[in-house]
């Protein structure tokens, strides 16, 4: 850590991990509701648990991205953060808004929340992932603008690296495309069309720029490979991301009232979306193999390699499985989609944030470069537990999805939704068990921050 102001990232990372725990607990609640339908009913109906689960995910990833930016931008720009006080202020505003929103979901019926927050003035609520009250959405815009200003001014006064520029473009895109969440016409087709400009252009567009630049930063720091090489890779990866991903939005436009030509555009371009993820895997392993030094933070390198592999599997392979229009005709809106969503989000975004936390947190907590060998060992255990259990969650949901597609849509005598759900309960049990293992991994992850504090830092010899 070269600059004092980088330390504001710590606040963001601590909040991110806290909200991550909440996300997983509500995920387990929902998983159980899939099996025991009246679990916590009517106190916490499924839709409420789901809002909490997905919104916590989005909010903690945003905390993670902002923390990552506050840490890496000053270091790349070789200057102190423009306004550390603004970063701290925005942290508390964002945390308060996020907490109030989640409590709103849990404490009052959603319709009451809509009324209390005067949703009628500018109705934006009640759409998947964009359930936040309009006032919260406005708060997100304010926080995003203040954040971009702070990051932008820091970059402007310092060294302009490719990592910083790509990150800034990703973060700016995130803020710009979020504005489409305020467009909510009565026309369902138009509503859905532009809803994807937030959701798809985030996760299969600009967020990948954020992912790419954070990964590039960690690789530069941990491998010592020439920045020129890494930056060239970064450019070509994000180029392929947007070249395939923008038109790839079309894979959401097959069955929502939009014209059939999207079946061609969407299939062809989204079939190429795995390419940048594959390149990312090749590049991450290449850079680590060509490393000029052994970084003692073995855990951070593991997360970095892990994110490259799991993003390729989750976003790339599991996305491709159901992206071609003739396949998607049967799989659209089933557990196949859920399977893909879980591994893609974990692989691409959860792991990159955890990689950044793993790399930076030891230094923000006063270490030279890394944690003790014991803490790292525990962190790597948590890596394997969480990663393997997400693989199993994905496999079990895929099994459930294949059966669901067959029984409900493909067979000669399609059965009703609820009948099919009962027939595939076994897979939901298995998914829930895998979810408990994930929680165990998460507990170990948190514990890893508290063990071996008084032991010396791991050394390169130990890390080999």
């Amino acid at each position, binding site marked *: 850590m070269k600059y004092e102001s980088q330390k504001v990232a710590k606040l963001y990372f601590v909040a991110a991990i806290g909200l991550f725990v909440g996300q997983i607990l509500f995920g387990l609640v929902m998983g159980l509701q899939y099996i025991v339908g*009246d679990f916590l*009913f009517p106190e916490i109906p499924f839709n409420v648990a789901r809002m909490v689960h997905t919104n916590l995910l989005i909010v903690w990833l945003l905390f993670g991205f902002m923390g990552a930016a506050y840490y890496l931008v000053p270091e790349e720009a070789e200057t102190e953060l423009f306004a550390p006080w603004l970063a701290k202020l925005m942290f508390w505003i964002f945390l308060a808004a996020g907490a109030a929103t989640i409590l709103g979901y849990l404490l009052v019926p959603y319709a009451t929340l809509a009324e209390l927050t005067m949703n009628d003035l500018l109705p934006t609520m009640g759409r998947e992932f964009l359930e936040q009250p309009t006032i919260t959405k406005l708060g997100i815009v304010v926080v995003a603008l203040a954040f971009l200003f702070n990051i932008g001014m820091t970059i402007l006064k310092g060294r302009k690296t490719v990592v910083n520029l790509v990150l800034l473009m990703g973060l700016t895109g995130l803020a710009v495309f979020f504005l489409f969440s305020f467009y909510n016409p009565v026309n369902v087709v138009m509503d859905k069309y532009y809803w994807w400009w937030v959701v798809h252009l985030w996760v299969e567009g600009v967020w990948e720029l954020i992912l790419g630049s954070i990964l590039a930063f960690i690789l530069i720091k941990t491998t010592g490979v020439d920045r020129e090489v890494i930056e060239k890779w970064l450019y*070509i990866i994000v180029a392929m991301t947007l*070249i395939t991903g923008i038109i790839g939005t079309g894979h959401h436009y097959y069955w929502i*009232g939009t014209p059939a030509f999207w079946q061609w555009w969407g299939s062809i371009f989204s079939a190429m979306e795995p390419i940048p993820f594959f390149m990312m895997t090749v590049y991450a392993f290449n850079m680590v193999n060509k490393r000029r030094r052994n970084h003692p933070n073995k855990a951070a390198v593991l997360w970095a390699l892990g994110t490259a592999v799991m993003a390729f599997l989750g976003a790339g392979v599991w996305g491709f499985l159901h992206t071609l229009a003739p396949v998607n005709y049967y799989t659209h809106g089933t557990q196949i989609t859920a399977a893909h969503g879980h591994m893609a989000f974990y692989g691409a975004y959860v792991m990159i944030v955890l990689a950044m936390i793993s790399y930076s947190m030891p230094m923000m907590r006063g270490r030279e470069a890394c944690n003790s060998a014991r803490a790292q060992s525990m962190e790597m255990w948590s890596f394997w537990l969480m990663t393997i259990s997400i693989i199993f969650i994905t496999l079990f949901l895929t099994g459930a999805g294949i059966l669901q597609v067959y029984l409900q849509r493909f067979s000669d005598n399609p059965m009703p939704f609820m009948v099919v759900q009962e027939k595939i309960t076994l897979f939901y049990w298995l998914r829930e068990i895998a979810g408990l293992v994930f929680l165990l991994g998460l507990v170990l992850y948190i514990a890893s921050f508290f063990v071996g504090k008084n032991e010396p830092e791991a050394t390169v010899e130990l890390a080999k």
Partner: protein
Amino acid sequence: MAQAFTKAMARNIFYVGTLFFFLLFLALTFQTHSTLPDRDNRQAINDTVALGKKVWEQNDCIGCHTLLGEGAYFAPELGNVYKRFGSTDAIKAFIASRPKDGIPGRRSMPQFNLSDEELTAVAEFLKYVSGIKTNNWPPSPQG
């Protein structure tokens, strides 16, 4: 990557490629808009449907159901529920009759205590959605 492939070339591919494909996306969006009047059943939209969409949104129906395949996968697809149930009255009766405390051991839709006007509106909204041309999706009436 070969030595001949420089960082400047990678950068140019990024900027030019992104710009080109974003413009292409805008062109396809423009084309999409021109086809929508024949596809999106907009002639069925009226004040009741608008109220119905509001009821749909303000009770977070998408948190359990899918609509044209998008949403949560906990409860049945509703884009074609009007066709599956056969009438708006059947939809209204179903929503109105959900038990307050659920059904022991099973998934149940909450009792939302909607007024008759709201029930009519949400049923009319679902009827409107069922008239959208979806390229013959879903594959079966079961959704």
